[in-house]
């Protein structure tokens, strides 16, 4: 008997990621547990995307190690990611979700009901047959969310899913994220939008120049930030 593979908790132990001479993540130690959403904040280039991609297993640490449920090199089974610029497969909206369902081993008979359910969740039921690449930016983000959820994840990584969206499209995404979190799926989301962080966060991880500057429950972080960088960032001043 093999022990069931689990994706959570995810632990970073002194993880460094370097690309050539550039250090992107610098000695990160962090544990992501089930629970309320964890929001990664920090300026552009602080390492948010790389941290998410490393937690997903798409990037290997140069030093240190990442464990999923206590084990290294666990292929993604119950974790999923919405990339900053999701690639739309050259298929219909429902075809994209069907692909993800098939990849995670959902049987043919079950697929159609899951597709209908997921498209309804993200409000794309009317556009099921539209080629995914013909959808608007906001619609593509929602389809990417549905496609990630098709993997029935225990933990879902979101990389600035609302970065280039207008307020209405942003609200649509945030409502879905909220609903997904209520279902018990752990959300780990990167954003540089403080308003969004306040609206969604259970707790905050602040990154700057590849290091974790400050972590803690959202209320404490926003009301009584401990570090100079966090104070500067929350005050809306330019943190460089």
């Amino acid at each position, binding site marked *: 008997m093999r022990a069931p593979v689990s994706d959570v908790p995810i632990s970073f132990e002194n993880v460094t990621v370097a690309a050539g001479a550039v250090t992107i993540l610098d000695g990160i130690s962090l544990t992501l547990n089930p629970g309320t959403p964890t929001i990664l904040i920090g300026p552009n280039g602080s390492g948010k995307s790389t941290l998410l*991609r490393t937690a*997903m*297993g*798409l990037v290997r640490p140069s030093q240190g190690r990442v464990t999923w449920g206590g084990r290294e090199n666990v*292929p*993604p*089974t119950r974790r*999923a*990611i919405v*990339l900053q610029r*999701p*690639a*739309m*497969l*050259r*298929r*219909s909206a429902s*075809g994209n979700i069907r*692909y*993800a369902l098939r*990849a*995670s081993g959902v049987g043919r008979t079950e697929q159609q009901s899951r597709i209908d359910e997921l498209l309804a969740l993200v409000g794309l039921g009317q556009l099921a047959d*539209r*080629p*995914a*690449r*013909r959808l608007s930016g906001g619609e593509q983000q929602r389809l990417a969310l549905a496609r990630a959820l098709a*993997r029935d994840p225990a933990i879902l990584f979101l990389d600035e899913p609302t970065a280039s969206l207008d307020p209405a499209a942003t609200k649509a995404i945030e409502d879905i994220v909220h609903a997904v979190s209520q279902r018990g799926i752990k959300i780990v989301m990167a954003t540089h939008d403080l308003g969004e962080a306040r609206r969604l966060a259970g707790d905050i991880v602040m990154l700057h120049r590849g290091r974790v500057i400050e972590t803690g429950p959202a209320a404490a972080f926003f009301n009584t930030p401990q570090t100079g960088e966090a104070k500067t960032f929350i005050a809306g001043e330019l943190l460089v």
Partner: protein
Amino acid sequence: MIGDASALQLVLTGDPALLAIVRLSLIVSLSAVVLAALIGIPFGAALALIQFPGRQAVIVVLNALMGLPPVVVGLAVFLALSRAGPLGSWGLLFTPKAMIIAQTVLVAPIIAALTRQTIEDLWLEYRDELNAMNVGPVGRVATLIWDARFSLVTALLAGFGRAAAEVGAIIIVGGNIDGFTRTMTTAIALETSKGDLPLAVGLGMVLIVIVIAVNALAWTARRAGERMAG
């Protein structure tokens, strides 16, 4: 029998000898494209996805092979299939099958090289998503070929254009035998050297019309498919 009738007359009356020549040309070139696709698409996809030492050199050589001189390919296939050659026992020299083999050798590198480029570009776009969905190597190749299918049609068309237009390879291995291995291009070469210019011009026009028609058909299919699948 094709006599001294004018080009237009032959085309308009559907001269049986001319139709046989057109038919054989299409059979040879289309068969060669199908065979070359069966070889070139998997090879190109594998080359796009598998990293190994010397890969860059293989890509350079493959790209260079797109410009293989047809007469050299014809000569090589001739030597291989001639009675004393390694494949001489097959008895294929001066048959349509020999012509299909020669054109397959010409077209396969074109399809493989264009497939490699197409699949590699798509892989860069899809890589993180497919890794995140835990898609294995076989699934990756299948997904990339399927999602690139409309671009791959262009590779097939390039291969067909090459096959339909060339004369050097098939005239050597086919022998331009009247009623057996005579195609449009070999007939044009023969009739021009004999001085029967109207027939050569007529065949030339038919050839161009066919190439345009095949491209138009593929273009229409591609547009329709893209509208449905994005």
